[in-house]
């Protein structure tokens, strides 16, 4: 099976961190905080669909809330397969990063 992508990993990690509070807007805020870059709704929801299609997350509609103007959330939960894939991705990134200048603070560029 091919490895998950960077953005997929960001979503899986955010959803795992947020736990029961993982839904579209909260995941988006987490990703923007962590990366310092804007996360578009289009990218977020199409990637969530892809992750759901692969069986890495489960999503369902939550109850409508007042702060959302009486609209529902799309709640997200990472599945066991999703956890496994995210762990594989993390281990791979950690392994490949060992010894790289940005992990050891050694200057390599001239």
């Amino acid at each position: 099976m091919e490895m998950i992508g960077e953005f997929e990993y960001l979503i899986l990690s955010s959803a795992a961190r947020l736990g029961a509070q993982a839904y579209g807007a909260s995941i988006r805020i987490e990703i923007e905080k962590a990366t310092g870059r804007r996360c578009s709704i289009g990218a977020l929801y199409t990637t969530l669909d892809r992750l759901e299609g692969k069986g890495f997350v489960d999503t369902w509609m939550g109850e409508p809330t007042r702060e959302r103007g009486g609209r529902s959330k799309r709640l997200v939960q990472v599945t066991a397969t999703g956890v496994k894939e995210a762990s594989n991705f993390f281990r791979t990134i950690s392994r490949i990063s060992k010894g790289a200048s940005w992990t050891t603070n050694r200057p390599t560029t001239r």
Partner: protein
Amino acid sequence: MDNEPTNYPMSSRKSWPIVLWLSGFLGQAEKEVVLGDLTEYGESGSRAIASVLGLVVRRKSAVFLDLRLWLAVALVVLPVSYLLSAIAESTAGEGAVYSWMYLNNWDWVLTRNPGFWHVLREMAMNFSITCFVLACWSWCAGFLIGRFPNAILQISRNTFIVLLAASFLVDAPTRFIHFWMFLHGLPLRPSLPDIHAPITANAFYHVFFPWIVLTILVVLPAFSGMRQGNRSSLFERKMRVVLVTAAIISVLIMLIQVPSFGLLLGAPVRQWMWRNRNAMQVPPLLCCWPMFYFIAIGVGRYGRCKAAITQCTR
């Protein structure tokens, strides 16, 4: 980030109506989720529009990457729209001649002639059957399209309408015959004087009448078929197989009715078809099965209503 979320309520912003309009292109559940996210996040106006537009574009363009869509268009939508436009055109031509003859040239003196009534009756009968069979074919074609997966249904439906109109507009069947003759090195038919010149000179019969025929006998039945095809998922598997098979057979039978179809056959087959032209009138009548489908649906609905009323009155 240059455009931070704000605390003003989304719904009071000028951009909100545009966001609402754009979100209408999304599915109902997704629309609710996205509007809720934007409200909660307090996205700025232009960012909210860009966000929703981005999602709509992604959703709409994703369907074009679906191989099923291209297969459906190539194997069903394109051939069926061509066939229906060809038959609708010949039906419209036939109808225009009869309408012009009887409506534009009505003469009360003729009504005293028994032969006039005999011919009128026969013509009305034949033309009604032609129209009814065309409507049934359109319904069957629509039914097949309606059975497509939901992901490609909307785009297939729109493509069908566009191709149907385009084929009708550019007179694709005639162009196909010319192209076929050119391809086989056959001399093009000499342009003969139009025997229906008085009819084609009339703007109503030349411009509007064919489109009226196309709308009433093709587009509306096809839409009804699509709706029924989509709803047929509720039927049992066996029933669905029977209905889809009947629709496929009907569409195949439609082939023999297309004026240019004979070109694709060998001379012996064409001769055989000509010799048995009376028998060839029968298969199209078999395509009237949607009538029985509606009767069965109606009877079933009546039975259910009656049972419900009986239960309520007890």
